């Protein structure tokens, strides 16, 4: 079921299997892609020792992009560009970094940059994007009241009252005295009452 291309050293799934996608096919596809990415990285890398240390060059590139973004934030009018810069930084981090580098460092980098991205998105009224990134943060284990605060805010802007209330409640269960969350909760309840007549 697997074809091997000796030139590029990459594997692929045989054509006839590709015709009927199924749940097993998806798992196979994911596996094949993972292996290929690993192979590509191994061929490219100049470090023969495969240490988990993050690639210094790539780190510089990412940091550069990120710093440009932060500079643009300082200038109020350049917020959309800042968003583009930071998005690019994150993309570079997730696609270009080698899979064998230390996970903890990659995760931390991602979470840090994502937080900035979320705030930018909220300011530039990209609420749906913010919710997606907030969900990502939650999935990576960042269960903090701040995340729920922003998610509630974004959901309210998108008029999803019940979902907003649920996130707000979750935030409050972690930090019951949080003033902003309490204020948002009041807002949710009022809007829901109106929604339900």
């Amino acid at each position, binding site marked *: 079921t697997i074809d091997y291309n000796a030139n590029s050293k990459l594997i692929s799934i045989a054509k006839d299997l590709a015709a009927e996608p199924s749940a097993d096919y998806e798992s196979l596809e994911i596996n094949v892609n993972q292996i290929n990415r690993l192979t590509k990285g191994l061929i490219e890398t100049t470090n023969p020792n495969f240490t988990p240390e993050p690639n210094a060059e790539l780190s510089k590139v990412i940091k550069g992009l990120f710093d440009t973004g932060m500079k643009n934030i300082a200038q109020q009018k350049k917020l959309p560009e800042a968003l583009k810069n930071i998005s690019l930084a994150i993309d570079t981090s997730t696609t270009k970094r080698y899979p064998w580098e230390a996970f903890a460092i990659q995760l931390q980098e991602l979470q840090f940059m994502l937080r900035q991205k979320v705030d930018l998105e909220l300011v530039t009224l990209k609420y749906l994007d913010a919710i997606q990134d907030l969900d990502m943060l939650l999935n990576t284990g960042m269960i903090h009241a701040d995340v729920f605060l922003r998610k509630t805010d974004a959901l309210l802007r998108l008029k999803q009252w019940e979902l907003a209330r649920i996130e707000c409640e979750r935030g409050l269960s972690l930090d019951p005295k949080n003033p902003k969350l309490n204020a948002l909760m009041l807002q949710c309840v009022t809007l829901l009452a109106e929604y339900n*007549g």
Partner: protein
Amino acid sequence: LNYDYDEQGETWPFFLLTLLLVLLIPSTLIQFWRIIKNNDSEDEVTRKYKEINKKAGRDVVPLEELNELYTDDKIKKFRKKFDHSSKSKILNLRNLLIIIGWVIVSVLVQRISNNDAIKEAASGMFDPYELLGISTSASERDIKSAYRKLSVKFHPDKLSKDLSEKERTTMEEMYVQITKAYEALTDEAMRENFLKYGHPDGPQSTTHGIALPQFLVEGAASPLLVFAYVSLLALILPYIVSKWWSRTQSYTKKGIHVNTASYFADRLVNYKPSEVVTTNLIINWLSHAEEFQIFFPNKTPAYFEKLLLNHINRVPMDENPTDVLIKYRIVAKCHSLLYGLLDIASGFRNTDIALAALDTFKCLVQAVPHNQYSQILQLPNVNKEHFIDSTEDVYTVGKLFTFEDNKIQKMLGIEDKDQFEHTMKVASNIPVLKLLKADFIVPGEKHVTPSAMAYISVKVLVRSPKHKFIPLKKFPDETLQEPTDFDFLKDPFASMNEKPLLPYSFAPFFPSSRRNAWCCLVALQKDLKILQSPFILERLSLTNLTKDLDKRVLKELGDDFDPKDWEIGSIRIPLAQAAPPEKGDFPFRIIIKSTDYFGCDLDFTIFMHVSD
């Protein structure tokens, strides 16, 4: 050494009679009880409505009749075929078999009473009471006096001279019998004999035989009988047992096929966080059920998925009547499949899937897709395009009831007055839950102690979307307390079984008639993972729905509002695990979702305060 066969047909009728009676008497009693017992007692809401209508002189169509009215004829036909509850209680196969059985019994009894040989054998039995001509409860004095009288009559010396020889012998025999009878009742040794062997002279001759007529055992029918026995023991019995065994093995405790359960489990094991859970995903999973494959072996999962989606989107399928029947069958089966999926998802602690399964349940019951319009579209007679295009910001039934009737009629695009009345009836009977109080309670304790077995007590107010909002403070704290009597503390959940069953839902598109139920999920707020298998609530009093508190009529909740008129529902959710052993505050998320209606769910957080 030698068994006699039942040549005169003496014993086999009794054998057959006994066999038949052993089967018939219990089954007849059971069938009688089934027919007599509450013939689908009207649920209390309907009864309450009828009471109210009688008093007010109104004539409103009850909800069940509305359900019947809006159910398609095709579905009604389908239900007649498959729905057990709609089968006639009097005209069915079982009753027919029982009647046939009793006919055979009466024939046998006739035959026995007409059989001379049996009569002879019976008359050979010794009955001293009969011989003496006294009742079986006669006292010693009566026995003595009867004997004296009869012995005078039958004593050989007292017989008249002009009796024939034959008559004389008969009289003498009679005298001997009477003497024996008297002695059997009075003399100790003979009495013992009589009690033991049925005759004062001791054991009489007894015969042992086979209670089968000879023609069956010897002769032409004999090999047939042997064949019958062999096939029964060696073929039919093992076949039945193996079929039963494999059936038991192929179905899980929840009633779904093991292959379906393992498919669901496989999906959950391979569940990727990047996958978004939607009702379409659940429908896709359902379409792979083994049950569907068994019902219709030559159809594919993709076909079933299309049918299910057609059902939800109410796509008319008049040109394919077979497809329509298949659709009814699989949609009806989804009930147990979804409960099974819910159970498995809870086992894997996956809240998203469990919630999506419940949403899908609603979609299938009401034949309405899951979107912002679901609450309104579940009502009958709504003009979908007209409603979606209308500019009003109305998505909930509660909001709908803030408008005047003619405005609502215009919004929903219903032109017929009667149809509109029906729609309003259904809308005002959707049971909405309002949370009054929720707590963790350890029976007999003031608060939750470490490692205690607690349960969750939820006090709800069932209200109609039409009702004016009643603030929590109108209900004094005493009304929201749990009982403290001993019986309650022994078993807090027993009182919930005394509540009436939830009534039949208004679900004209669902192939079988069904009752509403609420599914209670308990999850930790920390990681949003379900803690235990869902608690299904099937009993709750909905009499509050009959109260008249129209929010359009009532501007303010006046002083005459009496909270005692309103029934407070208690939902007690048992917890599978004990409280944590450490002190602290633990937030839980309780989700109570209806399986049948949109817009009557509860989702809230409560803290478990564990202290010494």
